[in-house]
């Protein structure tokens, strides 16, 4: 028996629906069809009336979720792709994110965003918007990189009283498998040392974790040990774990699949520079996607975002600095 990242997301939603009558799922094609990626497969049949197909109206989808949350429900929204959350952006950042701060009424909604690239996805089916959402006060942004985290963090997202942007990576849906669902979980807001090392720290999250781990294994053959930190959630961001790792290695490389301007990698470096400047033996480095829209052709796409090769090259370069 093994379970994929996608199945874990499906199972977490099934458990949330079973455990809490306040939970419902709303999104395009999530009903009988089971969602564009099958993340809600059979949930409409198993939980009649609680898994609803939405019109193609992202603004109204999020707005309705907020209204239901005010009335005490705990909606899970599926965006068909993270890219299509932008017509709902206003409701997310101006309504959901500000509600508690303005009124003391919490807004417990979970917005699932199938994120990131698959070859051939092109500019509008590949985006990573976590940095954009993390920019806004009032939102929690989760970026699970493992099957276990996909499951336990989604359950936690539903339980949390604040709006959660849940960035699930499409490339991991089918590629990533675990023997079973987890029985316990790390708390949200804690990063995890995914690989111990002494020579350099790579801080990353989501699908880039696996590229970074592959690069670290290769470099291990050359005798250098890279520590890889999986942020798990980018907001809150576990600065302590990152700084502790940099204290051990003295070198920092941040890797993200999102566009290079600002974002998670810049935030991590800013924090380490502020809180742990003296720990650094070399200038901190970062690796992101290129500063262009995401290209369609796989030959362009595979170079547009970081991968094990480019991460390995960046790490080797930093080791020599």
């Amino acid at each position, binding site marked *: 028996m093994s379970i994929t990242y996608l199945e874990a997301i499906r199972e977490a939603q099934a458990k949330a629906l079973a455990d809490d009558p306040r939970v419902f799922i709303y999104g*395009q*094609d999530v*009903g*009988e*069809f089971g969602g*564009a990626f099958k993340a809600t497969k059979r949930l409409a049949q198993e939980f009649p009336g609680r898994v609803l*197909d*939405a*019109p*193609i*109206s*992202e*603004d*109204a989808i999020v707005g309705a979720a907020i209204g239901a949350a005010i009335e005490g429900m705990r909606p899970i929204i599926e965006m068909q792709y993270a*890219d*299509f959350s*932008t*017509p709902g952006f206003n409701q997310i950042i101006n309504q959901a994110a500000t509600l508690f701060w303005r009124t003391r009424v919490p807004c417990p909604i979970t917005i699932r965003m199938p994120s990131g690239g*698959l*070859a*051939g*996805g*092109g*500019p*509008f*089916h590949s985006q990573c918007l976590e940095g954009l959402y993390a920019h806004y006060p009032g939102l929690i942004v989760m970026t699970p990189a493992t099957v276990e985290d996909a499951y336990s963090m989604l359950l936690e997202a539903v339980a949390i009283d604040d709006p959660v942007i849940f960035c699930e990576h499409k490339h991991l849906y089918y590629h990533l498998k675990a023997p079973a669902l987890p029985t316990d979980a790390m708390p949200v807001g804690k990063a995890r040392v995914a690989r111990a090392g002494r020579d350099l720290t790579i801080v990353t999250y989501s699908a880039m974790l696996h590229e970074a781990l592959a690069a670290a294994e290769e470099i291990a053959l050359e005798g250098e040990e890279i520590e890889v930190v999986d942020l798990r959630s980018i907001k809150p961001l576990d600065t302590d774990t990152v700084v502790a790792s940099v204290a051990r290695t003295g070198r920092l*490389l941040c890797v993200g699949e999102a566009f*290079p*301007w600002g974002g998670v990698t810049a935030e991590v470096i800013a924090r380490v520079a502020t809180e742990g400047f003296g720990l650094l033996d070399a200038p901190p*480095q*970062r*690796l*992101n996607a*290129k*500063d*262009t*829209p995401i*290209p*369609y*052709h*796989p*030959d*362009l796409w*595979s*170079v*547009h975002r970081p*991968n094990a*090769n*480019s991460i390995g*090259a*960046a790490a080797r*370069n*930093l080791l020599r600095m």
Partner: protein
Amino acid sequence: MRDRLHPMLHSEENPRTPEAPPPFPAQYLKAYRFMLLARVLDDKIASLGRAGKIHGGVFLGRGQEALSAALGMALRPGDIFAPLIRDGAGRLAFGEPLLDAVRTCLGSALGPMRGRDGNVHRGRPKKGLLPMISHLGAMISVVNGALMARRFNHVEGVVGAACVGDGGTSTGAFHEALNQAAVEHLPLVLVVANNQYAYSTPTRRQFACKDLSDRAIGYGATPHKADGTDLEDCLRVLSTAVAQARAGGGPQLVVASLLRLCGHGEHDDAHYVDAKLKESALGRDCLQVAEERLLREGWADSEALLALRQEVTREVEAAAATAQREPAPDPFKEDWCALSSRHLREIFEAPIPSIPA
């Protein structure tokens, strides 16, 4: 095949007064040819997709060719056209080269999108053919803006057309743009292909009005309804709507009823499509309906139609063969810059010289 066509169809050899429209059967046959070309092209793209030669999704317009071709034919060079996913026929009728389609699907570096964007996301803005983004409803206001620019520049007699599906009518963008077009009294023709489904979602989960065309009144647009399975009806309705917009009648909302005769994309078996709908008049294949009409009226015989199909197939095969021989975009030579103001470009220094892996 010429000889086998009804003599009336040789319109060039039958000169009439220059302003007179070509005779109806000639229009019909011309539209049929675009429909057939689009269908054969779709079949080729589907087979390239099955052979693993297409990256990402494969989206077809099967069942929507009559509506799409009728719209493309009602437009003229100089007009503005924002087609959507299932408008292969309309694109061809508007003048999009066949090669643009195949090259974009195959990601050829020589195509209009240079491998940067794919499949149906293609166009030539300077020729009035706007390249869709995926976000549904987003193209309509862009057409509005292009029409406003024409008005600023005192260019008259222009029409802008945008296509959208039944699902796309639920977007805020659709509402904003149709209202905007009405407020500005723009010559917009907004064509809704109500193919009964948005991916798996049936229209009853998409809208609750009796008829989408009723919405036109609320916006201050003129409603039109068409039977999307019947080429004659499509030709009549679209030419009327386009003519009214051109004559200063303001925005026109055309709602055509039909059925999507394929999956949402080729990955989708469309098992959720109601069997009753497939057997109903809506489920008719517009191409077959048109073919039967051509034969029944004696506007073409079966040998002529066969010859036409062969001719069209040769065209498609030639385009596919050309595009398949063409180079893929080269990441080493790619200009990784999204700005046209090159001097304002920012370089994000990678921790390694930016060598593609």
